[in-house]
């Protein structure tokens, strides 16, 4: 009896792996098609700008508010810990480094996935369900280059900007709590920060991270939408998968990138 169950279990795992690999292959081909079909996104830049408005500007409020709160919490917690060692003057550098290296890119990407990524998946999925994609193909217009590619480049462009704004607002939040409320010395707050944050090591690496996350989240959102079964249920599942997959991929990529960037492997 037991070996039967194991057999079923193994078969289940094998099935999932084969499916997963097949889907990954399909997704890679989709990604390649986006790159090939990208000409129009640059030649007709207004298509991309329109999507930057929808993906980027719409996510702005949630990014700014979250950034402010995360920065304020960092200020509070950082102060608590630092003052034990009498080094509360390092609060500025702690807040800035945490945000620029880690929290800015990662949290902005997670928020971006749940705000813009899910919207992209739902929109593309519905366009498919209502035959808009098929209609476009019948009009001899390639939906990959007309619909998908501009959204991709819009996401890739918005993500680093959003992450930068998240960090900037976060630093302000840390300043508010640390300097204005708690009373850390304003001069040392900024000067320590300026001394600790390295342009190449911290800022550029942070930007690289957010570009990679932008590519990952937008590509996942577009693929899930394009691949969704053309029904209400299919689109709703795809939307959920976008958020879950993006979160896992962003966190996984963040670990890998951090290992390479800050451990000097």
């Amino acid at each position: 009896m037991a070996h039967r169950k194991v057999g079923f279990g193994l078969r289940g795992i094998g099935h999932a792996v084969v499916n997963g690999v097949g889907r990954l292959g399909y997704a890679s081909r989709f990604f390649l098609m986006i790159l090939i079909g990208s000409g129009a996104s640059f030649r007709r830049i207004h298509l991309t700008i329109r999507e930057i408005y929808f993906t980027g500007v719409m996510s702005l409020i949630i990014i700014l508010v979250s950034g402010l709160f995360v920065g304020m919490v960092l200020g509070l917690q950082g102060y608590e810990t630092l003052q034990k060692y009498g080094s509360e003057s390092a609060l500025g550098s702690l807040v800035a480094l945490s945000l620029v290296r880690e929290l800015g890119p990662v949290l902005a990407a997670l928020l971006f996935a749940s705000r813009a990524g899910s919207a992209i998946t739902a929109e593309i999925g519905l366009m498919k369900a209502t035959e808009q994609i098929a209609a476009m193909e019948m009009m001899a217009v390639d939906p990959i280059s007309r619909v998908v590619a501009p959204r991709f480049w819009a996401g890739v462009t918005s993500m680093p900007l959003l992450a930068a704004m998240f960090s900037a607002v976060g630093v302000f939040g840390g300043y508010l709590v640390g300097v204005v409320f708690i009373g850390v010395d304003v001069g040392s707050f900024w000067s320590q920060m300026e001394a600790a944050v390295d342009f190449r090591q911290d800022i550029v690496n942070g930007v690289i991270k957010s570009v990679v996350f932008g590519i990952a989240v937008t590509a996942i959102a577009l693929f899930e939408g394009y691949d969704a079964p053309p029904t209400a249920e299919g689109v709703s599942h795809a939307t959920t998968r976008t958020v879950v997959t993006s979160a896992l991929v962003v966190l996984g990529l963040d670990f890998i990138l951090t290992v390479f960037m800050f451990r000097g492997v």
Partner: protein
Amino acid sequence: MPAENLVEISDLNFSYGKHPILKGINMNIPRGKLVAIMGLSGCGKTTTLRLIGGSIRPTTGSVKVAGKEVGGLDTEDLYTMRRKMGMLFQFGALFTDLSVYENVAFQMREHTDLPETVIRDLVMMKLHAVGLLGAHGLMPSELSGGMARRVALARAIALDPMLMMYDEPFAGLDPISLAVIGNLIRRLNDALGATSILVTHDIQESLKIVDYVYFMADGVVVAEGTADEIKASRLPFVHQFVWGESDGPVSFHYPSAPYREDLLLELAHGA
């Protein structure tokens, strides 16, 4: 050239998975004619149009448009061919993120370099033809079902295609719009020297305008003829369809286990 067929379908078979939908269809659509395809819901009319448009490929058999085998074209040739085709989708398929005006202008922007003033004139002309000039600023979500279908019609004819395919253009139209759209389809066909395929259930309206009719049932062509031949037909199937009788050789039901058995099954399983 004039006597030649623009679309030639021979021995066409198509299945979705294991489910056969079309079983050996033969049809010819002559150049310049307006041909109707009629049949019960689910008999494979939309599938036939999609095969002609090349969005699905035949399982076996051939579909030729202007002498070219559609299933054998690569993407580039297929897109070249589709530029000369217009398709009205059964459910409109308007682009929901674009206004009515931009929907109609879509192909002009994608495929031509016409200046904005010319595009504007063309769009207004097409919208005027379907009686929706005043609706150009609305979004698709602000249209009724019948209006959306008329906008989709205006969009489909935007670039004066040589082959027009209409999937249920009359569904959801009031009697006045119905007559206007029917006449428009006929006039477009004749004025442009185009060829048109009209899929419809509205037999009375379509018999007024079409040149030829194919009747489909269960994935095969069961009757064909000119409008007059169809009207005079004594074939029980055609008679039943033309006069809308529920008794006759055509079954209204999707093939299934007999209803009685189903009920008995339910009884056996139920509480």
